[in-house]
């Protein structure tokens, strides 16, 4: 394999990561607060569609990013209202959000099929630019890629070094006890889902504003569900989530590369790799670690909460 090939794979991997990593971050925050959102896919699609629409209308992709994040927050608030204030079943509500987001995003995006945008500008950070070609190009990436590590650190810090994060984790571990101890559990969960919504929106907007620069129905292709799996793989830690997203994106990138080279290996088999690996890793690693999963989630999954 030549250096160009490896560099190309690396570049594509980096470009693929934000759309899955930000979604994973969002779900980590949500699940640590005790809420599982099966409908991430729907929120991402809304973020993608609204972000794209805003970018086409204003001509500015950064405004599109903001719009995508904002739309994500607003849409996730529907989920929040259902499960927090009305105590509906989390799994079913998430599914409804998935459907709703899919449908609404199709309606929004319909008018913009065929449009394109300039996309987010790519740039390189000082220190990377002196790398010789082809490696220099690997580090020509857009804002969302560069922000991945800072955001990961930021979320980690938020969860583990602030009072708000401590309270959030307390709610996710034992909501009843937290309530009895005087915490405003509903408010904390709403705040968590707002942050999650913004991250889902960004993840979706990354696809339309950076990766494909077009709109297509259902372009998230299951990333919302994969994010949930990566959350387990990452043992609910934003720093470990980077590894999970990296693995997934790498598999997709390798598949694309092989396809481009006319390789006989079916690209679909390679596409399967991330899903298979995720299941395998979760089976091997996800279980034994005590205290990794927020205790409050146990009743959601055992079907005994509602």
């Amino acid at each position, binding site marked *: 394999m030549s250096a160009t090939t490896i560099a190309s794979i690396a570049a594509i991997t980096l470009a693929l990561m934000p759309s899955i990593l930000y979604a994973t971050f969002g779900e980590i925050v949500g699940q640590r607060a005790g809420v599982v959102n099966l409908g991430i896919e729907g929120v991402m699609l809304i973020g993608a569609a609204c972000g794209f629409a805003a970018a086409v209308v204003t001509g500015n992709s950064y405004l599109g990013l903001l719009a995508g994040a904002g739309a994500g927050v607003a849409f996730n608030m529907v989920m929040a209202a259902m499960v927090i204030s009305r105590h509906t079943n989390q799994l079913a509500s998430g599914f409804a959000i998935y459907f709703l987001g899919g449908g609404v995003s199709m309606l929004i995006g319909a008018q913009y099929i065929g449009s394109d945008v300039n996309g987010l500008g790519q740039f390189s950070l000082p220190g990377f630019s002196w790398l010789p070609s082809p490696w220099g190009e690997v580090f020509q990436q857009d804002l969302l890629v560069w922000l991945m590590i800072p955001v990961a650190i930021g979320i980690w810090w938020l969860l583990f070094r602030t009072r708000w994060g401590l309270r959030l984790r307390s709610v996710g571990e*034992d909501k009843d*006890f937290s309530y009895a101890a005087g915490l405003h559990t509903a408010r904390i969960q709403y705040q968590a889902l707002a942050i999650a919504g913004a991250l889902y929106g960004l993840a979706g907007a990354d696809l339309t504003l950076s990766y494909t620069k077009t709109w297509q129905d259902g372009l998230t292709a299951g990333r919302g569900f994969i994010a949930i799996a990566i959350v387990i793989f990452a043992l609910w830690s934003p720093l470990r989530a980077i590894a999970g997203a990296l693995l997934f994106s790498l598999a997709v990138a390798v598949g694309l590369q092989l396809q481009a080279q006319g390789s006989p290996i079916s690209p679909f088999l390679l596409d399967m790799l991330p899903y298979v690996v995720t299941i395998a890793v979760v089976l091997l690693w996800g279980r034994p670690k005590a205290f990794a999963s927020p205790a409050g989630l146990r009743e959601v999954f055992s079907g005994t909460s509602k």
Partner: protein
Amino acid sequence: MSATLQRPSARATGSAAPPPLEARGLVKRFGSLLAVDHADFELRPGVHALLGENGAGKSTLVKILYGYQPADEGQILLDGQPVEIRSPADARAHGIGLVFQQSTLIPALTVTENIALFLPDLPPLLRHREIEAKIEDFGRRYGLVVSPDRRAGTLSLPEQQRVQILRVLLAGARILIFDEPTSTLPAQEIDALFDVFRRLRDDGYPIVLITHRLAEVFALADTVTVMRRGSVVATVETADVDEERLVELMFGAAPAVARTGGRETDARRDGGVLELQAVNSAGQGRPLFGLDLALAPGEIAGVAGVAGNGQRELADTVVGLARIKSGRRLLDGRDASKWSVRRIREAGVGFVPESALGQELIWNMSLRENVALGSARRFSRFGGLSVDWPAVQREWDERIGKLGLDLPDPSNPSGTLSGGNAQRLALARELARDLRVLVTLYPTHGLDVKTTAAVQELLLRARDGGCAVLLISQDLNELKALSDRLLVMREGRIVAEVDPQTDVYELGRLMTGGELG
């Protein structure tokens, strides 16, 4: 965060200052039950014990003081001023700190984090070092040593208790209440805990110690308030009373034994109908550790122990709900270690768990369906394609109905049963099955007097019919009255077998593993 936490200044005894905590005329009813009956309580300086047997009202009184329940009548005063305590947060704001019997820590969070959650002036940015310094400072001062960065779930029970104490101290409590703090501690830890109490007392903290153990009262308390059946019976200085007087205050007359249950049995150990041999189990809670047990037909074997020492696991292991990791389970001499729950049941083992409504009956199915479920294969026809409902009804009419219990119509969903009725139904259902072994776990817990008597009567009748009854209970009176022999369980194994007539204090010693104080 404030530089030093205010500690209460030591009060001179007999001063004219109003008591730090006082309750006047508290009343609390639960339906027809008068849990607290016009109780007056005045916290005296030093360690103030609140003494009474199970159900005397001590816990309810304290729950009112801590804001968990509102009183129906009465007043609470702090430093002579009437206050409204509507929630635990209110109580904490007034400086009342309560350490529960069970751990209320969040297992996945560290010690520091668990304590931080309760700090009144926690800044938005956590300063772990500062909190840890405080923890170490208080820890050294009062003998509550624990590593701040360990997760609460990995701590032993005594360590968790230390964290709970630190938590109330650092939250700024001026008055400390402890609810049966020694009930889950082994002997050497009890000594350490008493030392902590003494240091706290010497530093001026008034301490309320809820207990039902006399030895603790004499070891620690300066004052003791005795409660019986919801009323405060007396408040005296411990120096002025002796054991007999306290027992008299606690029980009124000597407690009446419900009925005599002990009798000669010709139980042969090697002909046991059920045996557990050196069993290590893996179940929901405290695992069994090298447990040996043998049950013979026609006897009631009582199991006494402090809750949390493996009682639930013992029951689960006998009936097959908990997995046996090593050792053997024998039924009539056959190795049943790997049998499924169903197979064990069909071999004649019955189970009445602690709360039949939640643990054995299916709430949205009718009583009749629940009876059928208990012996599903026996009632199934055509390979399971239909259920012989007439046969179920016959069982109901002929066997269950004849047991002299007052049961509602079998078409009702079992969710409509009261707790007492559910317990009776579960027992009746099992007894109708021709049992060889009956395992009961806290069978009369929370039941009224009439139902308790009915249940106990049924257990005796089962025994008389040749059944081997394993009676696991927290009620020492019940155990003493019904058992033919009495086993004591501690830390996952049977540690002693004694005559049921053994006195309560000796049993208590065996249950907690050592001399008190």
